[in-house]
């Protein structure tokens, strides 16, 4: 088997006396879509934020394409972050820039691309997420689903190897979830490697290569969607899955 694109070993994080992440390990191969599920406070967000060091882990090591990431070395960290796209629950578009500028700014300021070249690429990415007609709009003029799609375009413009999605549809109206899911599904079909935290298990089970159930800062169980949703070994996994199925509908 090919070597993994991303390897996370024994990542831990403490806030004061509280362990929010207790030694999580994860191996991600090219094209994988790993779905993190679990109750709030399980450590899903912390794990994702530790992966690109928005939260500095207390312990643990991370490798991208067999290169260990030394986050204390700033250059190494900034270069690594360019290769790991992040999508946030509340979009975090830059409020003072319109959609086009939001997508372009990373390429110009971080990668040092010429404005015109970056602009062309930004238009392409916005077209890909179906927002070519909304390029000149500011975040406040876009719907939640549109904002999230701009943020996906913004991440894609940096040519990431891996995308981290932290509950990308949790802040959206039910009607707007579909358009964001369609974009993510499209990414998956094109071979993008992704790790996503979500409560949308119907969507998750149709797309995931592996489901990872987390609780209390630990990975309790992992496996294919069939295994986790229908034949979970852990009692807590079963309980959580049955509750969430009730809320968000059938897994099929």
């Amino acid at each position, binding site marked *: 088997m090919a070597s993994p694109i991303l390897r996370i070993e024994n990542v831990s994080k403490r806030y004061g006396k509280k362990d929010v992440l207790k030694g999580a390990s994860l191996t991600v191969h090219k094209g994988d879509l790993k779905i993190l599920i679990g109750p709030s406070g399980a450590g899903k967000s912390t794990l994702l934020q530790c992966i690109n060091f928005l939260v500095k882990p207390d312990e643990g090591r991370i490798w991208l394409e067999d290169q260990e990431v030394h986050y204390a070395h700033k250059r190494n960290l900034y270069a690594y972050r360019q290769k790991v796209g992040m999508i*946030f629950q509340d979009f*975090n578009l830059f409020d003072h820039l319109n959609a086009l500028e939001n997508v372009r700014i*990373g390429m110009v300021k*971080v990668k040092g691309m010429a404005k015109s070249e970056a602009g062309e690429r930004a238009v392409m990415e916005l077209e890909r997420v179906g927002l070519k007609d909304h390029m000149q709009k500011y975040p406040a003029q876009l719907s939640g689903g549109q904002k999230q799609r701009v943020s996906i375009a913004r*991440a894609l413009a940096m040519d990431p190897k891996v995308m981290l999605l932290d509950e990308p549809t949790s802040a959206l109206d039910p009607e707007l979830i579909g358009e964001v899911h369609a974009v993510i599904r499209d990414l998956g079909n094109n071979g993008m490697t992704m790790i996503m935290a979500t409560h949308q298990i119907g969507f998750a089970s149709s797309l995931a290569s592996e489901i990872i159930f987390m609780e209390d800062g630990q990975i309790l169980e992992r496996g294919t969607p069939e295994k986790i949703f229908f034949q979970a070994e852990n009692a807590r996994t079963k309980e959580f899955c049955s509750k969430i199925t009730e809320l968000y509908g059938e897994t099929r």
Partner: protein
Amino acid sequence: MEEWLYIQTEVYPALLKGFWVSLQLIVPSAFCGLVIGIMVGVLRVYGSRPVMAAADTYVALFRGIPLVVQLFIWYFGLPYIKIYLSPFVAAVLGFSLCSGAYHSEYVRGALLSIKRGQMLAAQSLGFNKVRMIFSIILPQAIRRALPGCGNEIIYLIKYSSLAYMITCIELTGQGKILASNSFKYTEIFLIIGVCYLVMTSVAGVILGRVEDRLLLPGFERHRI
């Protein structure tokens, strides 16, 4: 008739001269003060601990000591260590440093009001700290600091009248000379008051225009 002649031949030329000096004091001081304020504000929020402490000390000193005393120190105090400043330079220096201390407080407040998500998004794209501050945080923060900074600029226009205390004869200084020669204190200082009112009003209009110009969709001022 005699009054009118006096105003035409003596008051008007003297005050016009003073007015230009005032403008020459105000414009560079406002600009330098704003630049200092932005830099110090950024350092007070994002600087390392020693830098932060140094910036805080600067603000404590220049906000805490009366401006007249500061001007006296620059003009009468520095010669003791063999630094001689012209009255004009001493005044601009004093105004800029004092104004910068106040501006930095408005900028600091605005920086602190920017949501953490903006920073997370920039970091996740690979921005380093300096680029993040100058491309993402400051453009948003400046917009929020503008009403406060505008206030400080208006205030600067008025405290520029202290320059005559260190013999930089601007509008108020000219008025003082005229008045002590003719004893027409009321008339002359009424005219000077109107001059300052015009300057602050014009500045107010300009600042309002700048605010409108920088206004972002979705951040319009809402009336309740």
